[in-house]
């Protein structure tokens, strides 16, 4: 049997009444890598992930895990671990009992429950009611549930939402270790920076449609490319840049935005002995990348 991609989405469409949440979306997630699933809020990420996990029924098309619909997986928890967005639990059930219920239903030994609790550093609070957990603790409990079956694939929907910086770092370290162990990670976010330090590849959607799927480096190269420079002789620099064939515009008093790397701008300025007060790469926001990508798509 040929190797199936861990996740494959083909022509996926989901309509809620007259609203189209996901529109003929196709992509696949490669094995053994971290793939970021990006898009602004409301782009259809959650609906797509929930369709992958068999929680949402597609209007058309399909989503497959290991080559088959999630609903046909025999022991899904041993294959896929899912961390849902704003995951919810019964407030009066303890974290440990929550996991015991899942383990029992999935035929996973209860000893594994204590293992995953230790793994997410939640052992001390395990017997307390989830109602008293902080957001970070809930997120860890959610991760613990995803790890119960020792899956090779993790699907996480906006896992960093609402986490404090410490929680975000914990999650990032954890996912790095999981990925280093050969696991596949599919993680959604509306903030590029969140996944930029993790992802090998990104899938970007907007209005429920695929914008692009490409390696992160390509995306970063696309997003960057701009440099902001401040110099007392900004107008002279503008002329020199034009001579060098570099596009630049004056954006303020003594400030230029240049379509080149900071290195290139620095070289031009140095050659002419121009003093620079500021020279920095302009990090495009994800929104700007979207704008760029979506306008390219419609051109």
């Amino acid at each position, binding site marked *: 049997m040929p190797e199936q991609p861990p996740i494959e989405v083909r022509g996926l469409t989901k309509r809620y009444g007259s609203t189209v949440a996901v529109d003929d979306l196709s992509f696949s997630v490669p094995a053994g890598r971290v793939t970021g699933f990006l898009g602004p809020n409301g782009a259809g990420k959650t609906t797509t992930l*929930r369709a992958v*996990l*068999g*929680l*949402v*029924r597609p209007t058309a098309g399909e989503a497959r895990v290991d080559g088959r619909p*999630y*609903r*046909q*997986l025999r022991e*899904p*928890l041993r294959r*896929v671990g*899912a961390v*849902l967005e704003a*995951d*919810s*639990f*019964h*407030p*009066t*059930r*303890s974290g440990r*009992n*929550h996991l*015991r*219920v*899942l383990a*029992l*239903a*999935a*035929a996973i030994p209860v000893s594994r429950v204590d293992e995953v609790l230790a793994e997410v550093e939640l052992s001390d609070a395990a017997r307390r009611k989830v109602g008293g957990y902080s957001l970070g603790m809930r997120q860890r409990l959610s991760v613990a*549930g995803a790890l119960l079956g020792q899956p090779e694939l993790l699907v996480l929907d906006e896992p960093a939402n609402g986490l404090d910086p410490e929680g975000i770092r914990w999650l990032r370290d954890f996912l790095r270790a999981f990925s280093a162990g050969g696991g596949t990670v599919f993680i959604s976010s509306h903030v590029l920076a969140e996944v930029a330090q993790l992802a090998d590849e990104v899938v970007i959607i907007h209005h429920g449609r695929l914008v692009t799927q490409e390696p992160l480096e390509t995306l970063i190269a696309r997003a960057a490319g701009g440099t902001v420079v401040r110099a007392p002789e900004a107008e002279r620099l503008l002329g020199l840049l034009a001579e060098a064939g570099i596009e630049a515009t004056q954006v303020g008093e003594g400030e230029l935005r240049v379509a080149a790397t900071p290195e290139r701008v620095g070289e031009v300025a140095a050659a002419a002995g121009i003093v620079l007060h500021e020279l920095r790469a302009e990090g495009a926001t994800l929104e700007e990348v979207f704008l760029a990508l979506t306008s390219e798509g419609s051109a």
Partner: protein
Amino acid sequence: MIRLVRAELLKLATTRLFLWLGLMILGLSAFVTSTRIASTSQLQLSGVSEQRSIVQFAAIGAIVALIVGIVDSAGEYAHGTIAHTFLVTPVRERVVGAKLIAGAIAGMLVAAFAEVVTWSIAAVWLEGKSVPFQLATRTVLDTYLGILGAGALAAVIGIGIGALFRRQTAAIVLALIWLLVGEPVLSIAGVQQYAPGHAIAAVASAGSSTSELLGFWPGLLVALAYAAVFAVAGAVAVDRSDV
């Protein structure tokens, strides 16, 4: 499937649900049983049919079982745990099947608890009034079994209702309004016997007969039919739901 049923029972056992509903049964039974016995003469109390009708107050266990069923299914949507349930068991018919079986067991347990409570309170009162105790005889056995069956049926119907409504408070309120207002209104037309609450009451009233209710066997058949309809409707709703 046994595994899934055990998981469903574990869910029920690991929240405060049974604690609160247990206290509710305790309070209601103590109040109703005590008031009835206190206001009945010693002579009347010594008859087996009077004692049977006292222990039949345990049928409130069936109403509590209905609430257990509603909370068991609607509560999963209310708290969002239904997603976890479907991630573990993506074949939803199996989830519903396990819930129905676990619900029936839980409904019987609730009814059994109500029986023990009612029986114990009655025993203490009758002893105090020096009335010969007749509730430990085989003739009352069918009443006990009927109430257990009513608990199971009510829980199954509750699971169906909960799956259809998915909002537990609304579902519980609607169900209680139906029992307190809807069915009495039906009695104006004289068809209340065939309503779900009355059919279950007929099951719970095994061993005694009243003109208001169907007999035990017809009542059981009608109640089973309702349980089947609610279970199937609930299963279809669950299968179609996006969570």
